[in-house]
């Protein structure tokens, strides 16, 4: 009886906490958005600037996610399967973006690619615009979303061990065949999970991109930056509408993760 009570108690605390911290604000955003019906929200979402902002967010995500997927797999393989000097350092550095504030990342990129930065001068002379343009925004997004694939794949790689890979080698498979036919299928659920987390992080990125983009409306303004811009322009309906769309995407990601999790456990 006591066990049931304490379990119910724990459950109540967990649910209350989630309600206050997460669900409450989200519900308020929903309510405010559709307060005056669907039409204002739809109008806010279909302005050219907002459409451009979403397009830009999708373009950045479409570049950053594949790059970090490949990088994450390579890093995970290096950490689990190889022995080399500086492995501990690599392992620690992968987590850096989780610990570092995105604003700091943005400032660091500013120092590197600004007019007086290390690479900025040279790149300027050759007519390559990095800051206040797509390249810096992609770099910033890649940086902040870098750890997720590697962090998901590393434990799975450890768990499956390398015997299956050795077996494949003795059966005549070269390194590439072994990777495609044995390693990749074995880590697929962890990889998909990592890719989903990376995607979510890319879509929601604000801080680093805010610093390096220059926030030029209709040019370097992403969806999250657009929310802030609308809010500051006292267009609350617009800000809420864009927020809702971002929140819907996040919920979609959550649902996808819940669908995948059980499969991962039974695999």
């Amino acid at each position: 009886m006591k066990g049931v009570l304490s379990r119910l108690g724990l459950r109540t605390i967990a649910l209350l906490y989630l309600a206050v911290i997460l669900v409450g604000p989200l519900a308020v955003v929903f309510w405010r958005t559709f307060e005056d019906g669907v039409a204002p929200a739809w109008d806010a979402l279909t302005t050219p600037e907002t459409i451009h902002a979403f397009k830009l967010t999708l373009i950045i995500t479409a570049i950053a996610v594949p790059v970090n997927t490949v990088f994450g797999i390579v890093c995970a393989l290096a950490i689990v399967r190889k022995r080399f000097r500086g492995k501990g350092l690599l392992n620690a550095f992968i987590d850096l973006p989780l610990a570092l504030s995105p604003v700091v990342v943005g400032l660091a990129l500013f120092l590197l690619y600004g007019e007086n930065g290390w690479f900025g001068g040279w790149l300027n002379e050759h007519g390559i615009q990095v800051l206040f343009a797509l390249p810096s925004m992609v770099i910033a997004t890649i940086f902040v979303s870098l750890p997720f694939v590697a962090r998901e794949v590393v434990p799975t790689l450890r768990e499956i061990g390398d015997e299956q890979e050795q077996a494949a080698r003795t059966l005549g498979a070269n390194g590439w065949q072994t990777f495609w036919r044995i390693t990749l299928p074995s880590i697929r659920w962890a990889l998909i999970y990592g890719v989903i987390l990376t995607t979510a992080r890319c879509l929601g990125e604000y801080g680093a991109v805010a610093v390096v983009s220059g926030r030029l409306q209709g040019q370097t303004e992403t969806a999250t930056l657009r929310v802030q811009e609308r809010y500051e322009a006292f267009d609350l309906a617009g800000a809420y509408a864009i927020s809702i769309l971002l929140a819907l995407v996040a919920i979609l990601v959550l649902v996808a993760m819940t669908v995948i999790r059980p499969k991962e456990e039974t695999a």
Partner: protein
Amino acid sequence: MSILVRNVSKRFGEFVALDDISLDVESGALTALLGPSGSGKSTLLRIIAGLEEADNGEILLGGKDATALAPQKRNVGFVFQHYAAFKHMTVRDNIAFGLKVRKRPKAEIAERVDELLNLVQLQSFGHRYPAQLSGGQRQRMGLARALAPEPQVLLLDEPFGALDARVRAELREWLRQLHDVVHVTTVFVTHDQDEAMEISDQIAVINHGRLEQVGSPRELYDEPASEFVMTFVGDAQPLGDSLVRPHDIELLHEPAERTVEAMIVRVTFLGRDAKVELHDTSGAEILVLMTRDQFDESGFWRGQTVWAQPHRERVFAEAG
């Protein structure tokens, strides 16, 4: 296809896994690498397969230098103790793997897989996943998978080590029969001397990374080259200055040449054998095996003082 191991050494940090090993494996034979755990026998097998690199020495497969060859180019079949089954593939796909990566025609692959499923008696299990098989079935699948690309050499690393005693005995017998059919040069690693004695043509005994002796089961038993081989292959105990096997001790009623005085403390009947336990005058235990008939005819009784005479006893320089 013969296997020649030439002066192979391997260290893991400070630990010497293999110390200057040279070994000839006859073509077509079933050879056991026998030794206690940590003796280096698995390391030697992995070096032959190319899964581990030797620090020194050479590996020749079929007379050709394979020392620097990647494992996928050696054309060896390898069977792992813990099966190393491809978990995301069916039994059929597991067995077909070696043929698929060699880009063999589909019809040929299907035919060969059927043939192997028959050989390892898994005909009705082709569409199952490894997780749905018992340990013995998984290991048979592992064998079929290793044999599918028709390797020149079959290497088995403690293949029955993870199975229970009954399945182990079954599979052991079955491997011997399989070898008589397939005739591929086979090397298997084991720490179980019964397993090695029962099925191999040739046994290489390895201890502390060194090759102690190579020979037929009978040679190892009758002519052990060292104290280690004598005690590891079959039972042996010290009697006087020598080592002797329990059934090579004769019990006499009277003192005679080379006898040791001892008292019978216990007699156990093990089916057709009688196990006689004695204490010598210093209290050290002596174990003697004889047939029940021999014991009955001798008229010995518990508590009686007798004289133990060793036969075929051996004295080793390193002993002591």
